[in-house]
C-alpha cells in the first residue's frame, strides 16, 4: 500500500519566545515491510540550526533551533511510504514463552543480544508486582509466546476503556493498570511492561494508522493521528508487532516512524522554549492512500 502522510504540529505563544529547541522523530524508518519513497520537513519560521542523526535505536532524529523571537512555530513532516504485509507466524507454532525467556537471558549474540536490551524497565515503564500478576494470566506454563501475547492484547482491549481525558504524556503504567483507562500510548506501555515482567523483550513503536471512515461518509482531512503499538521479539522469527489499542496484528495500514524502549525515546515532537508565555498546541495528521 502506498501512503502520503502529512503531520503538522504547531505552537502559538502568547508572548514572543526567544529561543526554541525541538527534537523530531517524524521521518519514517525503512523496515522489511516498509519503503520510504520520500520524506521532508518544513519548518516555519525557518530554523537557524538543524541537525540530523541516527539515534541509538536506528531511528532518524532531527534537532533544530529557532533562535530569534517568534510567536508561532509550525513543523510539518510529509512522507510517502509503501508498505507491504509483514511476515505472518502461526501463533500456536511459536516457541513456549519460557524458552524465549531462556534464550534472551543467555543473550549470546546477534539479534537476540540486541533484543535483550528491551527486557528491562525503562524511563516510563516500571515493572511492579501488580503488572506481573496481571500478565501471568495470559501465560500459563508452556503457552506459545505469541498466543500469550495475543491473549494479553485481547484482555487489554476488552478490559480497558479508551479515554483521552484519562491520560497525559506522563501517565504511569501502574496508574493505567489501576484506572483501566488510557490511550494507545498507555496501552502500549502497559503491554510492554507485562511482557517484560515475564522476561520477554518488547519495544514501543511510534507511527500512524490509516483510518477508514464509515462507508457513507467522506474521509476528513486531519482526522487521523499519530499512533503507537508494540513489538515482541521471538528468536529465529524476529520482531512481531501487536496493536493492543485495536486488538490486531498490524498489517499494511500501520506505518512505522520509530521505535525505542518507550514513548520517551521516540516522542514525535519534544521541545524546550525560553519565554513564550502560555502556549497552545495543535496537531493535524493526514494519512492519504495514493
Amino acid at each position, binding site marked *: 500500500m502506498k501512503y502520503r502522510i502529512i503531520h503538522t504540529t504547531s505552537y502559538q505563544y502568547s508572548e514572543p519566545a526567544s529561543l526554541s*529547541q525541538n527534537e523530531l522523530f517524524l521521518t519514517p524508518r525503512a523496515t522489511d515491510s516498509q519503503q520510504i519513497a520520500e520524506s521532508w520537513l518544513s519548518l516555519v519560521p525557518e530554523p537557524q540550526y538543524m541537525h540530523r542523526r541516527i539515534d541509538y535505536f536506528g531511528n532518524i532524529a532531527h534537532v533544530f533551533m529557532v533562535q530569534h523571537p517568534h510567536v508561532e512555530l509550525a513543523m510539518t513532516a510529509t512522507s510517502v511510504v509503501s508498505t507491504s504485509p509483514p511476515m505472518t507466524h502461526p501463533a500456536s507454532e511459536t516457541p513456549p514463552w519460557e524458552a524465549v525467556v531462556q534464550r534472551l537471558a543467555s543473550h549470546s549474540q546477534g539479534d537476540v543480544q540486541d533484543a535483550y536490551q528491551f527486557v528491562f524497565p525503562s524511563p516510563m515503564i516500571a515493572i511492579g508486582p501488580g503488572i506481573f500478576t496481571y500478565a501471568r494470566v495470559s501465560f500459563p506454563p508452556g503457552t506459545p509466546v505469541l498466543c500469550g501475547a495475543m491473549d494479553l492484547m485481547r484482555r487489554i482491549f476488552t478490559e480497558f476503556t479508551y479515554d483521552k481525558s484519562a491520560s497525559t504524556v506522563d501517565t504511569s503504567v501502574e496508574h493505567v493498570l489501576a484506572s483501566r483507562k488510557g490511550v494507545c500510548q498507555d496501552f502500549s506501555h502497559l503491554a510492554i511492561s507485562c511482557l517484560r515482567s515475564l522476561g520477554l523483550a518488547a519495544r514501543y513503536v511510534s507511527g500512524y494508522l490509516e483510518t477508514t471512515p464509515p462507508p457513507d461518509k467522506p474521509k476528513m482531512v486531519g482526522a487521523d493521528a499519530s499512533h503507537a503499538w508494540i513489538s515482541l521479539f521471538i528468536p529465529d522469527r524476529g520482531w512481531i508487532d501487536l496493536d493492543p489499542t485495536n486488538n490486531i496484528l498490524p498489517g499494511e495500514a500501520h506505518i512505522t516512524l520509530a521505535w525505542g524502549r518507550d514513548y520517551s525515546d521516540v516522542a514525535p515532537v519534544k521541545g*524546550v522554549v525560553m519565554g513564550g508565555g502560555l502556549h497552545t498546541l495543535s496537531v493535524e495528521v493526514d494519512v492519504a492512500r495514493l
Partner: protein
Amino acid sequence: MSSTNKSGQPRPPQASLFDRAICPVNAYCESFSSPGIPRPHWQGIIAAINGTPTQILKQRQERVKRMRHEDGATYNPFDNADGKGTPWALEMIPLPITAGEWAGLETGLIQRALLLDTILADTYGPQDLLKGGALPAPLVFANPRFLHACHGIQPPANRYLNFYAADLYRGPNGCFRVLHDYSANPAGLGYALENRIVISRMFPELYHQTQIRRLAPFFQTFHNSLVQRSGLQRQDPNIVLLSPGPESPIYFEQALLSRYLGYPLVEGQDLTVRNGKVFLKKLAGLEPVEVIFRQITDSNSDPFALRRNTTTGVAGLIQVAREGNIGIVNPIGSGFLETPVLPVFLPGLCRQLLGQELILESHPAWWCGTAEGQNQVLANLHRLTVHHAFDPSTSIGLPNNFANAIQASPFSIMAKETLQPSAVPAWEEGGVSARHTLMRVFVCATDQGFTVMPGGLAITAQDINTLLGDIPEQLQSKDIWVLSDEPVEHFSMMNGLQTVAEFRRGSDLPSRVADHLLWLGRYLERAEGLIRLLRSVFKRLSGETRPEDIPEMQFLLTLLRAGNTIADPPENQSGGILSEDLGPQLLDGLYLRDRPESVIAILQRVQEAARTVRDRLSPDSWRVINRLDDFGESPDADPLELLDNTLFTLSSFSGLAMESMTRGLGWRFMDMGRRMERALHQIDLLHIGLPWACGPARNTLEALLEVSDSIMTYRARYRTAFQLAPALDLLLMDESNPKSLAFQLSQLSDHVEHLPRQSERRFSSPEERMALEMLTTTRLLDLTGLACPVGGWNNGDTDLFLSNFFETMEKRLKDFGLQISAHYLSRVTATPHFSLLLPDEGVQ
C-alpha cells in the same frame, strides 16, 4: 596548661594527648603501631600536638573553624554561624602518608583511571565489552546511569575521563581499597585546597619543617592538560565552571575553584546554545564557551535532551557535545562509572583491557545477576549488606525480604562486605579521640595519561554508618599530607585566589552577575540608611528625656513607619508615643526576621546578594560580609553600640569594594545600585521630612540633616542656625556633597555612559538620556528665597512645588531602574521559563 604539674615535677613522658585516641578493635590504627608507639611518620605531628598547651590547641581548632567560616565555607552562613552543617568541617590534625605508601597508591590510581577511561570510551562507543559479554548486559541496559542520548559522542582528544576521584579506605590488614569511584562531577577538590591553605597557616613551623608535597602543581597540570586536549591555543581560553548555584551545599568549593583555576563561575541560566555552540550571556552580548568544568550531575545537565524540568543545566548541551563543539569535564554520561556494581567486574576487565592485574582492589562485593554471585550472597547474607546494583538510593526492603528481592530481580541486587576502615586521631571537644576515616583522592588526565594530586580530603566520622552515609554536612575532614623523601618545590597557593576569573578581564561580565551586584549595592545602601535612622532614634532615647518630650522624635518615628520598619501606631493614639510600646517596637525593627524592612532582614538580603556573587568578592570583603552575622547573634547588646558596629562593618565593606574592586562593570553596577537607592532614600526623607521641618516641632531640620549624614557638612559650610533653603540646597543640589541627590544623579549619569553600547554617540541610549534629564532637572531647581510657608506646610506654593518635584523624580528614578534591567539584565530578571512541550498525541 604547662608541662609541669602543681608540685613542679616534670610530667611523665609517656602521658600524651593521644592516650585517649584508642583505635577500635579490627580497625587499622593509622597513627600507632601498638599502644603508645607512634608510627615513625606520625612522630612529628604527635610531638607538635603534645608540645602545645591544650588551651592553645583549643584556640587553634577555633581558629580553623573561624577561618573556614570567614572564607565562606559554611553551608549556610545565615543560619549556621556556629559552623554546624558545614560540609566536611575541617579538623586540625593532618593525616600523613609516607612517600612509599603513596607511590603504591599513585600507581594503583593511575591504572584504575586508565581502566575506567577505557570502559567509558567503549560503553559510549563501540560497546565491544557489552557484545563480548565482558560487561554483563544489565549493567548497560538496566542502568539509568547509561544515557542513550550520549552514545556515540566523542569528546575532545578522545579522552572520556578527565577528572576522577576515589574514596579509599585502609582495611584491618593495612591495605588500601577503593570504596567509591566518582566520575560525573567529583566533589571535594576545593575543600582539599581550602584545608591545605588553612592548615598550613595553622601549623606553619610543622608544615615547613616537614617535607610535604604541594598541591598547586596538580592544578597547573589540570589546567594545562585541559587546554591542550581541547585544542585551545590562546592565552585566555574560554573555560567556565558550571555550578548549580548558591543553593548547592558545596557552592563554596565551586567559587573557590573558579577563582583558583581562573574559570568564570557560571550557572545554567548564564549559558545559552546557538548554532550548535555554547555561549555565555554577558552585558555586551554572547561570548563563546569552549570548555565546561561541570559541577552539576549528569541527569541535570541538559533539560532538553534528558527531559528534566530543571534550570540547573543547559538546554541543548548534549547536542553541542554531539557536534564536537564543546569539551565537558567530564562528558555527560560519565556517571556510568559510578554504577555501584561496576567494581565487581574491574579485575576481569583490567586483565582483558590492560593485560594487567588490578593493583588497587575494590571493596569486596558480589552481584546477584550471576548464579555464582547469587549463591555467594545467599550463603553469606548474615554478614553482608545488600544494595541496589545501579541506584544506591533505591531501597531493597527489609533484611528478612532480601532473598525474595534477589529472586524477583537478581540483576538489580548486589551485596557488599561490611566496611572496616582505619582509625585516625582527631581533635574533639578539647582532646584527641579516634575516628574512622576514608581518603578522597583526585586524579586528572594529562597528555600522557593521568596524574594524582599528592594530598586530598581525609573524611572522618565517629561511626561507620555516618561515614557511609556520605552526607558532607555530617562528616569532618582533615588535610592529607603526602610526605616526600626529597625537598619539595615551593609554589604559592594563594596567587590564584585574589583575582576574579573573567574571559576578557574587566571588559564585560555575565548579566546575572551584574544584576546581583546591582541589588547588592541597593541592599547595602538600604541597610546603611536604615541603621543611620535607627541610630538617631536610639541616641535620643539613651538620654534622660522621655521620648514624648523630644520634639523631633515624632518625625523620626514617622520615617521608620513610612519604611515599614516599625508598625503603625494604633488609631486611638494618633501620633502619641508611649515609651512602654516603643521599646518592643524598635527591637522588632532591629531583630524581627519576618518583618521585611527590619535591620536583620535587610542584612540577610545583603548577605544573600553577596553570596550569589561570592566569586566576585575578594576574600577580605567576604570575611566582612560574614561578620554581619554578629548582628543576629547579639540580641542582648546595647542597640546603639550594635548599630554603630554594624555601620562600621558595612563601611568596611564599602571601603574594601572601593579599594579592591577594579573600576570595571561589576563595580559600576554595584555603585549604580547604591546611587539609585540613596537617591530614592533622599527623596523619601525630604518628602516626608519637610512638612515636619516646617511644623511646630523644633530640631526636625537638624534631625533631617543628621539622618541624611550631612550635618557635619552643613555646620562646616554655613555655621548658622538650621534654615530651610541652605539645608535643601545641601541635600538636593550640592554636587560636592556625596549625600546629595544631584551627586547620586551625576554618578549615575557617568555610569550609564560607560556601559557597553551599540552606538558610540553620547546620549544615544534611553538610560543615558533619562539620567541626564534627572540631573538637569535637579540642577535647574530654583530654591532662591524658599522658606517654610507661614502657617504651616500646606499653606503655600512651596509645598506644591517641592511635592511635584519629589514625585516626578521618584517616578523617573524607578523608570530608570526598569530601563537598566530591560537593557542589560532582562535576560535574567525574567526567570527562564522552560516548558517541556510533549504533545499528547494519543489516538485511535
